[in-house]
């Protein structure tokens, strides 16, 4: 496919595991996807589906004391990241691949001014003078539409509102013109009017800079309005992937269908929400058959016994399900 040739990031059969008191947790259990240049890819799923661990794996930020990438390949511009040295990874992070998190306060240093923190990233990766780095920081705050950027440079994170802190994080993440931005629930902690401002900003900046975005979220509404392609995850696996219109027009996997029927709508009055019965399976035991079988309304004996195939229905739309026909 053309997307593959154009891919800036390729994740192949990624397995990431954690050692816990209850045994090995298979947080990501064989996930593959590609990110094309300049594209916004949404990764959507509920708590514990492995979407954040996928992001942390790409940046090799899995804490080595408890977790590891057990197998699989992550290629960024053709270069294999899983075997890259820590030194080389450090040169990559915050420079060619950047990340923003849900709670900016936990990733900003409370005792340094925001100007210093943005400038630090610029000096480290681009090796420019302190003065040039500060100018770049000011330019970045302007870019993320923080009013009175010059004055804000000398403020500390606690002096800023939640929305402004997220703007600072975006400014920092984009300060070295990354090719890929990974945004993990970037607006989840924000109020809806502020969320709208931040999403507007991210999409504007994407158009200006051409940065490809991996947007990780639990919110189908955010995905629908920002992503071009969507990966749906469940229990550490990719259960469906499609262009955004195809996914919402014609969801194929019973889990995706279930999610869409479970959300209350702004535009209509549904009589009753569809429930997805039961709970997500424990990831400490190997899953036999389909991970969703126990909650699936159309599961058969085969679903409970044999791992389902990834069925390709064309147009870049795939689903991990026995009951989907190509």
């Amino acid at each position, binding site marked *: 496919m053309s997307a593959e040739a154009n891919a800036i990031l390729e994740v192949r059969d990624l397995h990431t595991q954690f050692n816990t008191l209850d045994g090995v947790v298979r947080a990501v259990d064989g996930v593959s996807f590609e990110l094309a240049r300049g594209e916004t890819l949404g990764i959507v799923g*509920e*708590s514990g589906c492995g979407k954040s661990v996928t992001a942390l794996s790409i940046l090799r930020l899995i804490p080595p004391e408890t977790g590891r990438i057990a197998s699989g390949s992550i290629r960024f511009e053709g270069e294999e990241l899983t075997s890259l040295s820590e030194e080389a990874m450090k040169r990559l992070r915050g420079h060619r691949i950047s990340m923003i998190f849900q709670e900016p306060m936990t990733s900003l240093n409370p005792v340094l001014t925001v100007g210093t923190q943005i400038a630090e990233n610029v000096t480290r990766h681009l090796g420019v003078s302190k003065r040039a780095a500060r100018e770049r920081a000011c330019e970045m705050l302007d870019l993320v539409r923080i009013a009175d950027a010059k004055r804000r440079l000398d403020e500390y994170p606690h002096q800023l*509102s939640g*929305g*402004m802190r997220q703007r600072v994080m975006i400014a920092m993440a984009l300060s070295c013109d990354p090719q890929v931005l990974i945004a993990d629930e970037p607006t989840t902690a924000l*109020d*809806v*009017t*502020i*969320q*709208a*401002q931040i*999403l*507007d900003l991210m*999409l504007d900046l994407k158009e200006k800079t051409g940065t490809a975005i991996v947007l990780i979220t*639990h*919110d*189908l*509404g*955010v*995905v*629908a*309005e*920002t992503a071009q392609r969507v990966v749906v995850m469940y229990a550490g696996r990719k259960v469906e992937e499609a262009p*955004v*219109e195809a*996914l*919402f027009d014609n969801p194929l996997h019973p889990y995706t269908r*279930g*999610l*869409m029927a*479970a*959300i*209350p*709508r*702004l*535009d209509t*009055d*549904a009589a*009753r*929400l*569809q*429930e*997805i*019965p039961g*709970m997500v399976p424990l990831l400490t035991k190997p899953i036999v058959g389909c991970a969703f079988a126990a909650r699936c309304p159309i599961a058969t004996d085969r679903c409970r016994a044999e791992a389902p195939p990834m069925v390709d229905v064309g147009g870049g739309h795939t689903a991990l399900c026995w009951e989907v026909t190509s």
Partner: protein
Amino acid sequence: MTVLAVDKLVKHFPIHGGLLQRQVGAVRAVDGVSFTIAKGETLGLVGESGCGKSTVGKTILKLIEPTAGRIVLGSEDITALKPGAMWPHRKRIQTIFQDPYSSMNPRLPAGTIVGEPLENFDIARGRERDERVAALFERVGLRRDAMRKYAHEFSGGQRQRLGIAKALSVGPEVIVADEPVSALDVSVQAQVLNLLIDLQAEYGLAYLFISHDLAVMRHISHRIAVMYLGRIVELTDKRTLFAQPLHPYTEALLSAATAPDPRRQRRKKAIVQGDVPSPANPPPGCHFHTRCPYAVADCKVKDPPLREVAPGHHVACHLR
């Protein structure tokens, strides 16, 4: 039939400062809020962080004392009741929280936790209590044998069911539900919302449903009150609110909300800019004028009262 009436409710939290810790100001968390809820009705209270919606809930529950205003439960004015006098009325108004786990003793089995109010209010003891608790467990969709499990053994959705069972145990008329599904995944959220709707139909419960999520609000509420900086800016039935919002802030909220529809264009949805001002120092006149795209000179000086502009449709805006 009105079961809860709130009239011009005010709650100010003092701010102390200076060497002598004198009161130097006040956070005007709730600044004159009035509404009623009927038997079997859900009133949604929606707004962003710091708008005072949770403080309204806590004040009505008398977990904190109101600064001014009146709270009438049934025919009883409970505004000034001291804890002892309030006690018998606590059965009538119960609450469920966003995070029920924080209110559950980790060392007690779930059955004991849910049965506690039955003993506290002298409703049932011993075997009779156990029977009632078992029935409550089944009613909220938990198995009887789950009574022996501890809070940490339940999932988030199951804990919310426990919280609901506990609130139900004493047969309340009103339930204040503060963000009860905000911490839950959507598949579980649907289970809990459906349960709340079923219980309301069964027992004629009145809900004050506090949430920041407009889609959840639309699903569960009959009427919705929109709050901004301590005041209700718009109050009407849910259909009207979504079809014809009159207050610019309501319009901004609806425009900012995302919908699971990729064809709805996302371009430039933030029609208000900037952050919510501090409730310790709210802007004069209409609190919203600093972010309002339509504000005129009057808005900066004159406080718009909440007026009924159409039957049942109340709005606080000079321009409507």
